[in-house]
């Protein structure tokens, strides 16, 4: 392919336009994170709302330049107020809650907004007319270039400049900068931090909505916008350095330009580009391009917990009872309920394996699906290519996941907090892209189907007992490790890295081994799942698979060892029933349930019971 200079220059402009877009969405997230330290998964939802409202308003207003831009600005302002409302009603109540609980709450908000948008605007895609006054194209370097894109290109630097003016030339800006560095300082400055947080939320959501509104002349507005923009936004913010607006701009530039020129050379790079950039940047700059190391966490990712101790007599009797019930269950219940129990057990093992690093080790992994999916593929490939029996294939699954965890973990242990979370996410996303792209081996998005278990485990009941025993043994092993000095070292490192290193304990080594163990059990769970479903799919490696484990743990309660098991049963039950009876409204109900749970029981269900019992 021969590229003319015109091709290159126009592609440069395209890259800049994409960068501007990425920056506009990311800037709001960065501002919000900087001050509130909330990882706002609902950011994409405000972006989507801004776009929808802008379509409605610009259709309502006269189709003139003023009408169009008036509509855009009004939409951004109105959604900014919605953001304030959300902050006041939900987030305000959980500022002191652990980070992951906040994350879950914003996930609930995301679900609610998605459903409300569906109910207001319907399912049809909206395609707004071109922007009045900017409908045409310019001739540039012998090519046509849409005028509106020039506006988009400029909008990035303009907003960056305005944010700079705001933060360096106004009182609110000074306060926001101060709060970004140290939230407690704001109180000391005599400012009502409630109002400050509202202002910040207004600013952040308004920026998101503005970015969405600006998209309407170039994009179709639909209900998938929120999620599809979310990962991009997080990648930009993290690559730039959380809380650094300038960093976000640089990251947006980097990704925008790499994308524009990347696809001319490797058209299939689209799937993996973002994750690759993020992984590379985080490996070399653990806090993003312009980020600063996070100060000592104000509260850590988890709340302070009570010492763990072997359960009381009644506790042990209860769980022994559960085990007995599980053992006799197949004699009482039919094959459907056995399937349900298998699903719950696998989910519990998967969540427990994440809990081992997250709850015990304090490492917030957002990419646990990497091991789950890898385990599933390992079983699928071992079974379909090598024809190995079930138990061997499961061993291979665990081993493959252990190897992957050893490699990924080696990079991850250098990081902490949100950066660690995003690096794990990047690794999982890279695995996911490989699964999609390497069609010959993995079957692409069809996955690998048609797996059968060895004759000994072919019946559902036989498989049930296999799953039950594996999950039981695995959970016991992890429990044993938690009570052993090894587990104490993990918890020590979670509570204070500095203290633990000063006690002569090798924090990184313990964390690395913990990640490997956790990965191995995660892979085992994935392998069991593949044999249960009869197939392995790329979804097993996806973000939502990772989030599932998080949700399970948070519902069950991070602080308790049985949390993942309780959470798996609760999550599975709630999800299945909700999906079954609520039809389209499931997102709304699930979202509201999550929000209520989080606001009422920030410690999770098992955590709540434990707390009550402790009183």
């Amino acid at each position: 392919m021969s590229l003319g200079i015109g091709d290159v220059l126009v592609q440069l402009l395209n890259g800049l336009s994409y960068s501007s877009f990425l920056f506009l969405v990311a800037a709001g997230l960065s501002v919000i994170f900087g001050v509130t330290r909330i990882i706002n998964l609902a950011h994409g939802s405000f972006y989507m709302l801004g776009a929808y409202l802008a379509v409605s308003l610009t259709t309502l207003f006269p189709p003139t330049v003023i009408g169009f831009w008036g509509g855009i600005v009004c939409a951004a302002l109105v959604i900014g107020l919605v953001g304030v409302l959300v902050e006041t009603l939900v987030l305000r109540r959980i500022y002191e809650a652990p980070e992951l609980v906040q994350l879950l709450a914003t996930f609930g908000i995301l679900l609610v907004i998605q459903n409300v948008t569906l109910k207001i605007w319907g399912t049809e895609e909206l395609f707004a007319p071109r922007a009045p006054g900017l409908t045409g194209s310019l001739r540039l370097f012998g090519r046509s270039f849409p005028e509106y894109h020039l506006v988009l290109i400029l909008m990035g630097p303009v907003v960056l400049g305005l944010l700079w003016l705001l933060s360096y030339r106004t009182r609110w800006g000074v306060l926001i900068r101060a709060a970004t560095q140290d939230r407690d300082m704001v109180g000391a400055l005599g400012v009502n931090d409630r109002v400050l947080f509202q202002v910040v939320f207004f600013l952040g959501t308004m920026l998101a909505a503005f970015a969405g509104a600006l998209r309407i002349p170039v994009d179709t507005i639909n209900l998938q916008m929120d999620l599809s923009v979310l990962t991009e936004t997080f990648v930009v913010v993290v690559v730039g350095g959380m809380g650094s607006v300038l960093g976000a701009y640089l990251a947006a530039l980097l990704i925008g330009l790499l994308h524009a020129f990347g696809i001319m050379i490797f058209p299939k790079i689209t799937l993996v580009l973002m994750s690759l950039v993020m992984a590379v940047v985080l490996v070399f700059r653990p806090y993003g391009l312009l980020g600063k190391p996070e100060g000592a966490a104000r509260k850590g990712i988890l709340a302070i917990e009570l010492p763990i101790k072997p359960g009381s007599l009644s506790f042990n009797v209860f769980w022994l009872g559960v085990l007995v019930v599980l053992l006799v269950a197949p004699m009482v219940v039919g094959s459907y309920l056995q399937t349900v129990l298998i699903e719950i057990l696998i989910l519990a093992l998967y969540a427990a394996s994440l809990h081992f690093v997250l709850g015990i080790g304090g490492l917030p992994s957002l990419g646990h699906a990497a091991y789950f999916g890898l385990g599933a593929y390992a079983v699928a490939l071992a079974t379909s290519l090598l024809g190995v029996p079930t138990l061997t294939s499961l061993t291979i699954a665990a081993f493959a996941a252990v190897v992957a965890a050893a490699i990924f973990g080696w990079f991850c242990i250098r990081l902490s907090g949100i950066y660690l979370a995003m690096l794990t996410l990047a690794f999982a996303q890279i695995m996911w892209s490989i699964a999609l792209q390497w069609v010959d081996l993995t079957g692409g998005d069809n996955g690998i189907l048609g797996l059968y278990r060895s004759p000994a485990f072919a019946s559902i009941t036989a498989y049930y007992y296999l799953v039950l025993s594996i999950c039981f043994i695995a959970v016991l092993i992890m429990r044993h490790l938690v009570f052993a000095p090894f587990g104490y070292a993990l918890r020590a490192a979670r509570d204070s890295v500095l203290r633990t290193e000063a006690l002569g304990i090798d924090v990184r080594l313990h964390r690395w081994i913990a990640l490997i163990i956790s990965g191995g059990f995660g892979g085992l769970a994935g392998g069991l799942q593949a044999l249960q479903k009869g197939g392995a799919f790329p979804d097993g490696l996806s973000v939502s698979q990772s989030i599932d484990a998080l949700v399970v743990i948070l519902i069950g309660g991070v602080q308790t060892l049985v949390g993942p098991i309780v959470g798996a049963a609760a999550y599975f039950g709630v999800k299945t029933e909700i999906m079954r009876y609520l039809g389209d409204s499931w997102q709304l109900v699930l979202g509201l349930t999550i929000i209520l749970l989080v606001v009422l029981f920030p410690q999770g269900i098992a955590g709540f019971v434990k707390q009550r019992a402790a009183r």
Partner: protein
Amino acid sequence: MNLRARLLMFIAASSAMATVAVPSQAADEKPILIGEINSYAALPQFTTPYRMGWELAVEEANASRGPNDRPIEVTSRDDSGKPDETILIANEMLNDQHIEVLTGGFLSNIGLAMSDFALRSKIVFVAAEPLTDKLIWEKGNRYTFRVVPSTYMQVKMVVDQAAKLPARRWATIADNYELGQVGVAQFKEQLKAQRPDVEFVGEQWPALGKLEAGSTVEALAAVKPDAIFNMLFGAELNRFVREGNQRDLFTGRDVVSLQTGYPEYLDAMKAETPKGWIVTGYPWEQIHTPEQDAFVAAYRKKYNDYPRYGSVVGYTTMKATIEAIRKAGSTDPEKLISTLRGMEVTSPFGPIMFRPQDQQSTLGLYVGKLDMKDGRGFMTDWKYASGKDLQPSDDFVKARRPAEASK
């Protein structure tokens, strides 16, 4: 449609979602339960009219039920867009709710997962919209039948037109997932077979749902093709078309585009509709056959809305399923399979048949060119490409389909 009407429609649709109850149901008549799974949340543009289509078919079937016919009930669920969730739901439907036949599917990967489930559980699966060829060929099985034209057939429809174009330098664009990959590969192969002189000079593979239109259009323009083969649809298609229009990508170039003529996608393009594109679609307002007129009238009466292509697929899938049950007089899978093989059924596009060779229906599609008037796109020069005429040789099929599947 105004907001209130939309809201009311939504409420109506969602309340009808869980189960379509039977109007009058005698106590001794146990209804036949059909399980239906589709991507309602992920792809509402298509699946909402699709659901309206099959609900109409159920209503008609129950109204015209003979004295010996058991009433029909459908339990319908969203697939969450994930194959493993789908298997779980299918399992629940089969073992808990005791469905007797399985239908549905949009995404190819979910279709394949449902088909694998059908094989394991020995239950008949009438696939609605999954397009992958594997569903009937490489991964085909006895229990799986499909209604919509396969990727092979859809490509064949347009290749015949594409081969007549003078263009020699072709570029392709499709989403970076299985359907796109297979569709593009099919197009290249079939076009090369007819026109050995063409060359493929460039390709673009945006991640599904993540098309960055500006730079992608530019990257396509940079290879200076004579013609473009497109498989984008829905939101991405609109984005692609508007950018392409503004950047003169389509000026002086032929474009062949799958599915762009579906009302679901075409109606949203409005004034951006690119003139002259060769597309497959459903020009419902221009078709006047008895079957089509009857379908449109019934649809309008029930919903006060016009049918989309999804409506036709939903309606035909459910109608064929129910007729097979009635003809077989049973839901026994073996009886259903032998009934469905070679069975004729009347679709809004006219009579179709499930081929015994590969259990693919002969439902076709309309091929034509796009045009635009008064800010609205429509199809012109269209003709019906019947599925009968789009099939490869039986040897071709035999070489691909497992012998087991044809027993």
